[in-house]
């Protein structure tokens, strides 16, 4: 399997480390329901059979964390983004949400 690192180009998956589901987002520790939210964040997994957003780290390359959209049934990769950009995008969305 090959992953197209947005910084380094396409590389074999042995250059990367896997973390898992990128759709779970670290909750606000100050939330009154932080205990439940952190439990869900750390343990509950949708375990998608199909296109899934997931976190990969370019261990042997540029050390960037990436959000990879990949079909877990076929291993086809549709999109790779820098995790930092996705995180910023998420924060912006959060900021503008009333």
């Amino acid at each position, binding site marked *: 399997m090959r992953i197209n690192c947005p*910084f*380094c180009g396409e590389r*074999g998956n*042995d*250059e990367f480390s896997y973390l898992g589901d990128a759709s779970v987002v670290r909750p606000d520790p100050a939330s009154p329901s932080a205990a439940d939210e952190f439990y869900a964040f750390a343990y509950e997994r949708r375990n998608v059979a199909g296109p899934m957003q997931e976190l990969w780290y370019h261990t*042997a390359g*540029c*050390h960037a964390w990436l959000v990879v959209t990949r079909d877990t049934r076929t291993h086809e990769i549709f999109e790779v983004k820098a995790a930092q950009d996705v995180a910023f995008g998420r924060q912006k969305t959060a900021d503008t949400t009333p």
Partner: protein
Amino acid sequence: MSESAQSLTAKNRPVISELTDVSVTHLAARREMRTSLDDVARSTFGVALPATPRVVEAPGVMIVWAGPDQWLVMQQRGDKADIFAELAKTFNGLASVVDVSDSRAIFRVAASRPSDALVRSMGIDLDDSVFRPGDVAITHVSHLGVMVWRLPDATGYDFACPRTYSRDFLDWLGKI
């Protein structure tokens, strides 16, 4: 940039030498300072910091892309005063700088084109038509981390490996 005369190669193979007298500074842009950093870098070095995996050269300096918003600035040490301190001052507030001159062993392979053995042994496409002069890659070979760049003047390739793995790396390099 010149290398030490110490030759590590046998006959009938590309000449491999180690670059030992080089100051290497790792530069990482501070948050939201990229534009100002680019300006200062251009005026300091006379070349722009490469935004993609490329290496650029200017008199006395070679700048190697080292990841997003990160570079290795390589300068001949010679008898110059504290190169690192000077860079730290220049980029104060715009980039974080760390002296990593001893982090990697850097080997220069003199070859205008890559040997078939070299092409075969790398997990990235080093074909002459693909890995062009000035291209940089951070990757691994034979379980060893490595940075490789092709010299902008197409006279060779530099391989930088973590210093503590350099014995094994040199073994590998001896086979290409």
